[in-house]
């Protein structure tokens, strides 16, 4: 189905159009959310939320970007909301235990289901490092290296220039290398 036909069908709340949309995009959206939030179970739930949001707000879609871009933008924003919510919970939990034994806020190990077996251990270290990046660098790096979006696609999703995407990726790589240096220094 052509994009404009699909959009018209969605705006008319046509069930077949909505089913077509979900079937077309579910795998990609699911993978984007897995990469961003680093949790498979939450990613399933979040993917559903993305499509519910699309259904509810299709009337507000002004077609100034492609349907593709709009969908991924919703997925990224919802992922970031969940990441921030988790951070707040962790901070609150840390504060309540401030008089008890001091605990560092731990990032749980994450095994991405799409990683090859021989890379599992390294990928777990890498995802831990990615989770420590600032939001914008994390988003740009995940979309580029993990999900293999082009710089142009990333710039449209994040609503920044291509130059900004390049800058974010450069800084993300520098930060990741710094983290990995510290991680591996003691091990070698």
């Amino acid at each position: 189905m052509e994009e404009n036909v699909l959009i018209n069908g969605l705006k008319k709340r046509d069930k077949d159009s909505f089913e077509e949309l979900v079937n077309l995009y579910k795998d990609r959206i699911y993978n984007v959310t897995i990469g961003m939030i680093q949790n498979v179970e939450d990613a399933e739930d979040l993917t559903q939320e993305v499509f519910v949001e699309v259904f509810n707000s299709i009337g507000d879609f002004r077609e100034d970007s492609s349907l593709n871009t709009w969908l991924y933008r919703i997925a990224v924003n919802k992922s970031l909301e969940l990441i921030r919510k988790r951070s707040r919970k962790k901070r609150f939990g840390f504060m309540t235990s401030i008089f008890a034994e001091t605990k560092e806020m731990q990032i749980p190990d994450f095994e991405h289901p799409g990683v090859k077996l021989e890379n599992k251990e390294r990928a777990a270290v890498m995802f831990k490092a990615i989770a420590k990046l600032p939001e914008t660098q994390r988003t740009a790096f995940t979309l580029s290296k993990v999900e293999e979006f082009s710089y142009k696609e990333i710039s449209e999703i994040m609503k920044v220039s291509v130059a900004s995407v390049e800058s974010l990726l450069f800084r993300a790589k520098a930060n990741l290398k710094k983290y990995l240096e510290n991680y591996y220094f003691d091990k070698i």
Partner: protein
Amino acid sequence: MKRVGGGNNFLLKKEKSMSKNLQEEIDKTMQSVEGLEQVKANPYMFQRVHARIEEEANERLPILRVNYVVALLIIVLLNVLTLAYFYKDASSVKNSVKSESIQSISKEYNINTVYNIIY
């Protein structure tokens, strides 16, 4: 014997080798998240999304119903209060007209009444 600085050279070589190993480890790890296989989403994703949309729509309905009932109650209450106010006003006007006519008759015939005493 030309072993002066030999120990330093050895350390330098060891450092370089460690640095090379470290760099290799870092590069391998950086590449480990590239070219991931795409994970398949739940095949029943549409059914789940559809069920969720219907559930949310049903949750919204009772709240709307409550709002309508509350609005209706407020309207009825306002009408009752308005009617009660006008009824009270009307009876107080009626009472004052009655007392005025009794007073005028009693004055004319010089009869003492409760109204004369009061007024």
